[in-house]
């Protein structure tokens, strides 16, 4: 059990560092006018961040996760409906793990 002051210091330090990471990106792009090549870099971030979050976790899964991945993408591409895609993915993973 950590002492009270240790908890307070840990939380304060983590909070400060985390907020700085949240604010730094906007602070930087507000000061650098990003056009052309740098603008292309910026525009690519949303897709590449999502791919980089997803790829290791999907590859680290098994057949249930891979089937659910394909189904989720198919449903999302067809219906563009987030809750429906979510229910499809989670439901299928759950079902396939129960069967397997």
């Amino acid at each position: 059990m950590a002492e009270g002051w240790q908890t307070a210091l840990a939380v304060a330090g983590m909070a400060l560092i985390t907020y700085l990471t949240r604010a730094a990106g906007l602070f930087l792009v507000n000061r650098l006018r990003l056009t052309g090549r740098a603008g292309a870099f910026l525009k690519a971030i949303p897709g590449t961040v999502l791919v980089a979050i997803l790829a290791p976790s999907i590859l680290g899964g098994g057949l249930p996760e891979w089937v659910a991945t394909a189904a989720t993408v198919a449903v999302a591409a067809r219906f563009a409906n987030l809750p429906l895609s979510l229910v499809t993915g989670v439901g299928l993973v759950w079902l396939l793990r129960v069967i397997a």
Partner: protein
Amino acid sequence: MSAGGLLFDRAGLLEGARASWPVALGVFTYGLVFGALARQAGLGAAGALCMSGFVFAGASQFVALDLWGPNLPFAGLFITTLAVNLRHVLMGAALGPWFSRLTPLQAYGSLFFLCDESWALTLARYARGGAVNGAYLLGSGLIVYAAWLAATLLGRVAVAGLGDPARYGLDFAFTAVFLALLTGLRRGRGDILPWGLAALVSVLAAKALPGKWHILAGALAGSLAAALMWRDGDRSRG
């Protein structure tokens, strides 16, 4: 990007909040796990609530519990927090084209609530176009924040019988959300190389590096590829 303000009002706040209930449910289940682990690690209810309320970054909070003990290794804790959350820098930069048109208070206030899920929802919404609103991220973030805090408290004070979310397939909830949002972001063949490289580098980095470095490594590699592929399409050359 043209100068001039971006709308920031109640309607946008509500739109973001309404779009976020599915991810808030997923966040809630992980908040329960965080609360339960906080109890095991010896972090008090007030401490757990403060951490969730002031830090509000799941991955780094789980890492902190891992290090929790009688003598906290502060340097290690802070360096790990920075490493795990450094991806936020890229995410905040990606909001630049819209958030640079808000007042500093609106923009930097909203950014406190930046999390992977709300950020992805917000950018997916902005990519769809139409009447976009600067308050979307705040609305989404507040719902996720409320879910995270409530679940932290509930998990901390009432742990009994809490299983692994994987048992119900809930570990796949975030994967499914991110897959759906990524599907909405695709633009065509120009995505293949940046996304392929991001996938490759993130998979390799996940094997070699701890924590969340793979997100930063993969996203940087993929976005650099997109920058290198860039052609000045607006002006005809020579």
